[in-house]
């Protein structure tokens, strides 16, 4: 299957497929499985695709896909309904507003941008949880989740590399 430069990029390829992959891996990581007494990490995988989608191009469908992913996370993890949806949309908004500064940056620089966006998103989630539960979430747990999410940037970069220039109309 060849993707010639003239082929228009359908939303299914750059939004649908990564979304389904993200849902599947998130579900697998939510299984109660311990390796040598240690539990599986719990990265926020949808943050990865949220970042990549906003960098690749602005789109009407992407925020709706982000909303869907957020609600899926809330339901799967049993968080207050809307917590991750608001958090992911915050991240999408931040990237959308600053994507001009990200254009053409090298991978390490984009990694730093991604880390910054992750910190902003998790800080938003922290704030919303604090308002909801009237209690401060444990900072050490927040740190581990943040770390597990940030180290996964290469997958987001692969998505960006694959689709940033995939449609000639956006050159």
């Amino acid at each position: 299957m060849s993707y010639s430069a003239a082929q228009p990029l359908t939303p299914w390829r750059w939004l649908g497929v990564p979304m389904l992959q993200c849902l599947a891996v998130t579900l697998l990581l939510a299984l109660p499985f311990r390796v040598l007494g240690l539990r599986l990490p719990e990265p926020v995988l949808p943050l990865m695709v949220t970042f990549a989608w906003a960098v690749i191009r602005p789109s009407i469908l992407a925020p709706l896909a982000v909303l869907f992913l957020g609600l899926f996370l809330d339901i799967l993890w049993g968080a207050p309904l809307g917590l991750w949806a608001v958090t992911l949309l915050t991240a999408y908004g931040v990237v959308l507003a600053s994507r001009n500064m990200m254009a053409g940056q090298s991978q390490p620089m984009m990694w730093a941008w991604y880390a910054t966006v992750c910190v902003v998103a998790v800080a938003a989630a922290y704030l919303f949880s604090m308002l909801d539960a009237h209690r401060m979430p444990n900072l050490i747990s927040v740190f581990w989740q943040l770390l597990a999410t940030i180290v996964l940037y290469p997958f987001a970069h692969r998505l960006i590399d694959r689709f940033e220039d995939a449609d000639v109309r956006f050159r």
Partner: protein
Amino acid sequence: MSLRDNQFGDLKVPLTWTAAVALFVAAIVAIALLLSDRRETFQAEAYGVSRQVSDTVIAPVADVLSTPGQWIGMGVKSVGDYFFAVSENRRLKAELKEAQQWRDLAIALRDTNERYKTILGLKTDPPVPMATARVVTESRGPFANTRLANAGSERGIRDGNPVMSENGIVGRVIGVTKGASRILLLTDIASRVPVMVDRTNARAILAGDGGPNPKLDYLRGRDPVREGDRILTSGDGGLMPRGLPVGVAVKGLDGEWRVVLASDAAPIDFVRILLFQDFSQIVNTAELNRMQPPPPSPGLAQTVAPTGAAAAAQPAGTGAPPTAKPDTAAPPTIAPAKPAPAAPPGPGTP
């Protein structure tokens, strides 16, 4: 007519703006959902149909997916059992020796206890029925600590039921549907459980914060807890039965008293859901609060009637002899034989 032929055909909106509008709409939906959510309440309807439907779908899928992991875990455990059989045997023998002493003590105490109960005519709690379930998904992040178990309303599980592993209490049920129930763990940021210190009987509220060791809040009294004290559920408020093992008290790095949960000692794959209902949950409060107006006492008519007649004959404040004409006389101000109805019970009426 195609879109291009339309009068707005040449209108071009920047892509970023259209994305921003979509983002704005999605954000409003998400914020509305977040503001209307009440996942930790005891009201069954607060859990929501969307969550119930999703749990019904996720539970069997995750059940199938988690089965290979469970097999691998069992395989690794059996290999470990094989290699560590000798040391395990020594440890178990020592434990058995100690347990035998406890058994003798327990028999003696049970005998004493039964005598006391007989003397006092004490009504003790009936045994609590249980339902066993397997955990199929879990969330471990700082913002949500819940598990999904593969047993639901068909087994008699209800909202608020306490959940235990073989080592201690794990949490409580916050949402039930057919075939699945959602368990809010003690470590979740929304979890609050009344507990007590076994040694001093001091009460506290165990409050989760998303970390592995929940805090002991609202501790009162002088030196109510020491390092290593056993923490049990207090049963206050009818949330859980009294005396379920919770864990051991430790001083956290932040200077707060925290609890190392007993249920953390082993992986939680199977759980027991206690089908517990406290008296305060069973009782029909509406029935108790419904107050009937008291019946009219038979003697009241006789005792009040003459006074009423006298008042009618003698207007108040004049002190004059009853010379007034019958048509100008003040009517009696009270209806003696008809008592005023009782005030309707308000929400605060016991």
